[in-house]
């Protein structure tokens, strides 16, 4: 039986980790994730989990400890945000290159400078090319559900890759919402016992991690790494199906909202999708056929499915809570690439919103939908990339 609770996003993720009871957890505090690892550390101290905690002196060390523990043969978790994720950067590539299924909630926060502790997606977008699977969450319920599913995805014997579960800093991590917890036993049964794959502690079969591989085989290893990413989508869908049977909550590789017959559409990640859906309803009431696509699986990015879902739309706005300075927003680049092979393409624009936790308001969504409506009528795009909610 599901238990209805009122908790924060951080609390929900910490509870998911408690229910999974991993072997090892690398712990280092950083706002706004601190509260999640603090809660998990309490579970360890109170004997609620059997997890070995490794208290480290930096996120670089945290990820290094996680890599060692995962290679040894443990089920390993950690969590981070912002500068912490940035400091892990070189180790992130090693976790994925070594095919170690480390599970890491990332509480999305802006990157310095200027120093800012609030929610935007610059941190996880900066780690998009590290070979990790990325699953994004709109609210606390999704963050909880995605954290549980991440174990099944990353640890799948055909995958064995690390997974980031992204949720918006403060907006989700520190806001109390109504959500449903699964029973501890249900989570344990769903996730299953950890299955080892090439563990270093199998002393009868000695092996080495991290060899030097130069021009002879490096190219081949990267090709193999690309191949495993192509298998992730099907595993994500299969795990989601099992999860739906358990929880009644349905997940896909992305969510669509009133998109099937839409003329205009917004593509947007995480918490801002909720606000946008409300405004879409208002536009629908006015007779404007608006819809939304909210990616859940960002790495690997489901190009074909996204193109299929958007191909009938006249105009699309991709909204980024991160910028690639001197280029487009990172989500825009993916969606534009997805749409490019289509013979009849929707017109497309890119808006940068909500950096450093700047509020994303219903009026911003209305501004974007109004512009899309104009573009759909005129067939003309005036400005391709633009910041919104910014003072002149």
């Amino acid at each position: 039986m599901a238990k209805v609770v009122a908790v924060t996003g951080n609390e929900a993720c910490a509870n998911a980790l408690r229910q999974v009871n991993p072997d090892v957890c690398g712990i280092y505090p950083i706002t706004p994730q601190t509260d999640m690892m603090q809660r998990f550390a309490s579970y360890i101290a109170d004997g609620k989990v059997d997890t070995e905690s490794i208290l480290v002196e930096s996120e670089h060390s945290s990820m290094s400890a996680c890599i060692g523990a995962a290679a040894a043969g443990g089920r390993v978790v950690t969590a981070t945000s912002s500068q912490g994720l940035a400091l892990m950067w070189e180790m992130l590539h090693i976790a994925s290159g070594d095919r170690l299924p480390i599970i890491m909630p990332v509480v999305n926060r802006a990157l310095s400078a200027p120093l800012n502790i609030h929610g935007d997606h610059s941190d996880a977008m900066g780690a998009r090319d590290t070979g990790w699977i990325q699953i994004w969450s709109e609210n606390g319920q999704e963050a909880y559900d995605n954290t549980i599913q991440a174990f099944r995805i990353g640890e799948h014997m055909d995958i064995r890759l690390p997974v980031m579960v992204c949720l918006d800093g403060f907006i989700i991590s520190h806001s109390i919402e109504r959500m449903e917890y699964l029973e501890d036993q249900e989570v344990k049964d769903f996730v299953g016992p950890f299955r080892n794959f090439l563990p270093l502690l199998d002393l009868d079969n000695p092996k080495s991690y991290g060899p030097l591989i130069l021009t002879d085989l490096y190219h081949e290893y990267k090709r193999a790494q690309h191949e495993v990413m192509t298998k992730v989508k099907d595993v994500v869908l299969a795990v989601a199906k099992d999860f739906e049977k358990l929880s009644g909550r349905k997940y896909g590789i992305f969510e669509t909202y009133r998109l099937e017959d839409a003329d205009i559409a917004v593509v947007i990640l995480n918490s801002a999708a909720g606000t946008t859906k409300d405004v879409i309803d208002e536009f629908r009431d006015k007779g404007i056929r608006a819809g939304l696509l909210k990616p859940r699986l960002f790495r690997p990015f489901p190009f074909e499915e996204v193109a299929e879902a958007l191909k009938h739309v006249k105009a699309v706005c991709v909204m980024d809570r991160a910028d690639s300075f001197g280029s487009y927003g990172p989500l825009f680049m993916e969606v534009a690439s997805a749409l490019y092979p289509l013979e009849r393409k929707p017109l497309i624009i890119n808006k940068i919103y909500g950096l450093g936790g700047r509020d994303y308001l219903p009026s911003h969504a209305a501004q974007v939908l109004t512009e899309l409506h104009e573009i759909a009528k005129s067939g003309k795009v005036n400005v391709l990339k633009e910041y919104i909610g910014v003072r002149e």
Partner: protein
Amino acid sequence: MKAKGWKDLPPGSVVLEGGSAAKFKTGSWRAFRPIWKEENCIQCLFCWIYCPDMAVKVKDGKRGEFDYDYCKGCGICALECPGKKGQKAIEMAEEGK
């Protein structure tokens, strides 16, 4: 032997056997060559202990010749060698001279 293709590789570039370093001869990296002078050797085996590779051969408890297939010429053995009466039993000489 046909070179391996990407489908033949173990996941995660994990080396699935122990002691495989023996398959890679690293002697060609050497810029300085250690020379063993048996007349100054007291058989302390410090060189064997300190060698970071396996380039000092020992047989029946006695020091033998260097294995130049693996010696990278780091010089640690020459540094640690106590020698006899102030005369080192290992000296480093520039390769190619």
